[in-house]
């Protein structure tokens, strides 16, 4: 006669909960974040670190690196007894010109958006025509404008000729060339801001407009106190993309003047490319030092954006 146990053991039948199961809540978010974090680390964080590291070396991109400490920064920024690097100085001021003047795209985009925000026959067609410059490549924009500016055959001088104004060679004049390129860049950038504002205008609350109208608001008062506050998210995005666009002005410069005449249209990113990656550029260390300086300039803007986004979110809570 066999004796069965008084209490059947359930333990063996019920499997032990796995380590993952026990920590599921804590781990799962990290698992979802992991791919993004790996890519961000490999493609963003590590290259930044490498740039810092390379900027302390003399390196032609092919052979061995030699440690030179902060020599590149001394040359670039004119620390110690060295004079400030003149190409760097020009590039830096050009970068500032780009940042300030490129912002004109925002009011221009707003103006066109207000103008196009109406219902007439074929408005979709007009809108798409205004949006057109943003669709075509920056390289094409650059080419078109460099033909437009041509000193003899260009359309600009033909038009100026009608009014009796003398021919100007905008891209050949070191004091005008940068402004000429910025004007070319504003063409697609205005279209971009216009689209942002057009979508923003769709979200404007008609009841508020109605109420404002009953209170007697019209014209620029209506725009300034009623419409614009509602467009604030669109303005913020337009501001961000325009600043980023201004810092990415590389392709237009490369196509239109190649940094010339005599280097007067260089910006920091173009200078970096020229020093380290172009036909005669074998100075990776110096190029990396320029990149690091550019990084800190951009960091200033990024910090400002992050801060204002944080502030807005806090206010919304």
């Amino acid at each position, binding site marked *: 006669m066999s004796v069965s146990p008084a209490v059947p053991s359930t333990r063996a039948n019920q499997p032990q909960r796995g380590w993952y199961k026990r920590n599921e809540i804590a781990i799962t978010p990290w698992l979802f974040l992991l791919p993004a974090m790996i890519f961000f680390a490999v493609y963003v964080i590590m290259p930044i670190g490498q740039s810092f590291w390379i900027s302390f070396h003399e390196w032609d991109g*092919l052979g061995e690196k030699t440690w030179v400490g902060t020599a590149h920064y001394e040359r670039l920024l004119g620390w110690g007894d060295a004079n400030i690097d003149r190409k760097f100085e020009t590039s830096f001021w050009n970068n500032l010109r780009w940042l300030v003047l490129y912002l004109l795209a925002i009011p221009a985009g707003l103006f066109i958006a207000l103008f196009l925000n109406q219902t007439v026959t074929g408005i979709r067609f007009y809108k798409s025509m205004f949006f057109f410059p943003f669709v075509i490549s920056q390289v094409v924009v650059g080419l078109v404008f460099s033909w437009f500016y041509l*000193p003899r055959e260009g359309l600009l001088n033909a038009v100026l000729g009608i009014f009796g104004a003398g021919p100007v060679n905008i891209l050949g004049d070191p004091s005008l060339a940068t402004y000429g390129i910025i004007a070319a860049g504003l063409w697609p950038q205005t279209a971009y801001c216009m689209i942002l504002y057009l979508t923003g205008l769709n979200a404007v609350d008609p009841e508020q407009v109605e109420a404002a109208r009953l209170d007697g608001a019209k014209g620029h008062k209506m725009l300034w106190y009623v419409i614009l506050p509602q467009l604030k998210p669109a303005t913020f995005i337009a501001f961000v993309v325009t600043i980023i666009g201004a810092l990415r002005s590389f392709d237009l410069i490369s196509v239109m003047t190649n940094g*010339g*005449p005599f280097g007067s249209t260089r910006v920091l990113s173009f200078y970096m490319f020229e020093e380290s990656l172009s036909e005669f550029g074998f100075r990776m260390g110096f190029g990396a030092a320029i990149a690091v300086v550019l990084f800190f300039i951009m960091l200033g803007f990024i910090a400002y954006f992050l801060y204002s986004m944080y502030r807005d979110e806090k206010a919304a809570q």
Partner: protein
Amino acid sequence: MHSILKTSLAALVAAGVTASSVAADGHSLSGELNIISDMSNPAPRAVMEGMAADFDALHPELEVNLTIVDREAWKTQIRNALGANPPDVVNWYAANRMRPYVDAGLFADISDLWAEPAFDALASTKGAMTLDGAQWGVPYTYYQWGVYYRKDIFDQYGLSEPTNWEEEMANCQVLLDNGVKCYTIGTKFLWTAGGWFDYINSRTNGYDFHVSLASGEVEWTDPRVRETFANWRQLIDMGAFIDDHQTYSWQEALPFMVNGEAASYLMGNFAVAAMRDGGLTDEQLDFYQFPVINPDVDFAEDAPTDTFHIPSGAQNMDAAKEFLRFVTSADVQTEINSGSGLGQLPVNANASIDDDKFLAEGFDMLSNNAGGGIMQFFDRDFDAEMASVGMEGLQEFMVFPDNLDDILMRLEETRQRIYN
């Protein structure tokens, strides 16, 4: 044109010209031969494809893979191409342009190839391929520089080819008085101004001085350099060059000459094809050697050489070397540099030159009237950084000659940083 070239090259193959050298090796080549070429313009591309196909046909067990990269893009891509998994043969340029790759050990030393008797025929270009006492590649073509001019315009105003600086200036004055610019030039991409500097400097101070300046032994603020710029300035102050040249590429400057608004162009022989395409006939076009400035110095000429190299990491070294022998052999040289091919000068002394008046004149000039020496060109003779800063300064000088002091100071600062 392509098929003509191919058939004629194939005929060469049939004649067994190069096959004999293979037989002499006693073993046949096998495996793969990977070539990356920058001969991307239509005519050079056809030449390169023809050469690769014929070399492939010569060696049945060898598989020739040809990749053609855009010529401008190759100038920056070569670094990556030589780094990991390099091909067996690449295109590049002679003289100091090889320096970074030689220093980094990325080009193979092929001095053994140059020691072979067949390479004696290439002796004239050996200097340009030599760095640190060894040879790092072989040339496949070169071309003369000089002044290409509109003979019909010269005839119209009763001018003749100038032989010295006074005649040059006098000619120019006549042209300017008649509303024709003396020279067209497009300096947007800077290097064209380098040609002018090479010529005026070597004519003023001689080849040896030019070489010392290129190798950083002479200060840019030296009075002899200033003399060069003073001579150049005479032309600039006359208004000899077209206006707004800083906005044009060298091709965009061509219409001035084709339309008769400018009478001449200091250029390499490759410009002839473009001028003919523009509608100028050989009766309208002619060529003269850059005139004497200082009678005490001998003629030095720009004659840039384009080259083939073997990366040090090449997988199939034997086949690569055989390909270089093939490319430089007299018959292949005759064929690829002919008017239907590259239309340039062959590097092999035993090759024959195509029946073209510019090639004939250029070859004669380089063989008999370049006693000073052969320069490769500003951007190949000078260190890379010096060349880029230098050419920018030259462009600025051509537009604002008054900035000369500032420009020279900048160049001197760069020289001291690079060479000290």
